């Protein structure tokens, strides 16, 4: 029983990471109907930046905040410089641009920081009061950080004029433009926010998975699964889906299939969800008029 509870809690911790990345994916999806395949690599690169900042002697939380700011600027810049010129191109061309980004960021991380696996510090002391036999302090802390990020995102979108403008753009860009919202910049802001959320997820993931240029591959996949499970057009569904996938994956890895083919769990979840309930658990069902 203890073992099962332990699996569930660490599943929740990892699920929080998936939930954050899933939220980042859904944010970009809602605004542009595109899935950013480079999301994971962007988060990985941010984590490397955090690692360098800590290496230069900055306190962890200062480095954390700085990394979020740098990632935000980076995401904004990528949208303005790389994605914007192709926004009217066919969907597949945009997908190819994302793949190009993925390859570039991955190989640049490899060139700058090398492909060796490096440890990443956890900000949570190993004897903290919130750790116990079920859950390690880092896992508990990581859940708290994820929840904090999600709460901030919620407050931003729900209670600020800027958040309202961004939601308006996602819903109806033409009308938003007509009432004076700068649609292009709202999209860029969305990319910046998604990059920052991904960076937070990466920094929480790195102490568990270790830091290497390919660390985000499987995380991205599980996040996709989470986003789909919750409904890819519903941010809160995506968050819940992310947590669910984290727990499912951990339990399946421990008791059902073993860790070797854990990735197939994501495949099964994705195909299963898409076949049984394509709109996800909380997604809007699409009814099309013929």
């Amino acid at each position, binding site marked *: 029983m203890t073992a099962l509870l332990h699996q569930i809690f660490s599943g929740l911790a990892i699920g929080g990471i998936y939930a954050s990345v899933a939220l980042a994916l859904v944010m970009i999806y809602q605004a542009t109907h595109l899935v950013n395949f480079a999301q994971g690599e962007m988060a990985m690169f941010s984590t490397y930046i955090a690692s360098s900042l800590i290496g230069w002697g900055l306190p962890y939380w200062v480095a954390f905040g700085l990394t979020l700011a740098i990632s935000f600027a980076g995401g904004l810049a990528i949208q303005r410089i790389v994605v914007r010129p192709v926004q009217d191109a066919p969907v597949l061309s945009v997908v190819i641009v994302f793949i190009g980004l993925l390859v570039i960021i991955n190989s640049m991380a490899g*060139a700058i920081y090398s492909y060796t696996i490096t440890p990443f510090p956890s900000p949570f002391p190993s004897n903290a009061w919130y750790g116990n036999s079920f859950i390690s302090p880092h896992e508990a802390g990581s859940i708290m950080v994820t929840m904090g990020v999600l709460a901030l995102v919620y407050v931003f979108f729900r209670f600020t004029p800027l958040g309202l403008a961004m939601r308006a753009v996602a819903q109806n860009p033409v009308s938003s433009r007509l009432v004076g919202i700068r649609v292009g910049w709202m999209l860029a802001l969305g990319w910046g926010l998604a990059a920052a959320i991904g960076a937070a997820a990466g920094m929480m993931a790195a102490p568990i998975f270790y830091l290497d240029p390919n660390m985000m591959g499987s995380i991205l996949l599980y996040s996709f699964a989470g986003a789909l499970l919750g409904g890819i057009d519903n941010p809160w569904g995506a968050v819940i889906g992310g947590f669910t996938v984290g727990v499912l994956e951990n339990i399946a890895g421990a008791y059902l299939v073993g860790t070797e083919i854990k990735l197939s769990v994501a495949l099964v979840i994705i195909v299963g969800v898409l076949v049984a309930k394509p709109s996800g658990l909380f997604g809007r069902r699409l009814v099309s008029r013929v």
Partner: protein
Amino acid sequence: MSTASAAAPAVPKTLAEKSAVRSWRRAGLAALLLAAVAMPFLVSGYHTFQLTIVLVYAIALLGLNLLTGYNGQISLGHGAFYAIGAYTTAILTAQFDVPYWATVPVAGVICLAVGFLFGLPALRLEGLYLALATFALALATPQLLKFKAFDHWTGGSQGVLVEKPDAPWGLPLTGDQWLYFFCLACAIALFWAGANLVRGRTGRAIVAIRDHPTAAEAMGVNIALYKSMTFGVSALYTGVAGALSAVVTGFVAPDSFPLFLSLSFLVGVVAGGLASISGAVFGAVFIEFVPNLSDEFARNIPYLAKWVLGYTPNVAEQAATASQWTIYGLVLIAFMYLMPTGVAGFVRVLSAALARRRGQGGLSRGNLNHRNWPGTTGPANGGGNP
């Protein structure tokens, strides 16, 4: 009315133009085939090997293009079918002593079945959702191939060795040259079949499903059957390519089929040109040679730096060792900026512009658009966008 009378004499002219284009195209095709046959006698063994790989990729890309370009279903997981084909050949030759040429159709049939079955749930997935499901398939493939329970067949992470065949019937060819001709024969047969498939009634149904599923259904096209069948045929092509790749490289291992392979296929299809038979060849050349050229360029960075700056900075050395894929990615993005419809689309636009300059005004332009209809509409726009 004056436009109509002015346009009327233009019709036979464009028809003549059409047949002229057709005969030019035929001549070009013959020249290309001649060059393809002469190639292995003109270049080194290694380059012959590279060209063989291009042929293999071209077959796989044609398969993916049938699915993505013509039918509008995005797949990021065709590396999985490539792997199934390769492993079928490897296991049959290594464990059952089946001759390599006999394993190729077997691999094709197995992939047809697997692709058809995967296509059934994929029916409910449109656009992006299918892309995600196949993305998961691509990521899971190496892990599944390493799975312990299949070790006996797949050799685990060690993989399986495939014996490279020599030229039969005492032909005066090296092994590489023979394999090149073997793949060339397969490619010609499959391209001929593919071109006919696309041109015929079935092809029109496939394209109609991409462009307007509701209208296609109203016309009596069985969407479920056609979509799964397209998936199956697409997997067949890719599986045959995988089987050939196993023979050509003489080795299969789980890590030869990473996510990157599947992504490369999609890159090849889009860079070559969607919904275009020739696009598959352009795309194959792209994914085989652009990474190599990027590598060569990256390795020359120190010399370039020395030439420009007069000395070799440390950074240049570092960049040389690791920037191959960075350059590849940059080329990829630049390519999408310059030719969003791929090489084949670019050629089409170019030739249309030339014809327009020669012809007079609107009608010939309309005719050109009509003739190039499958490609000009581009891919189905992600299908299931809410």
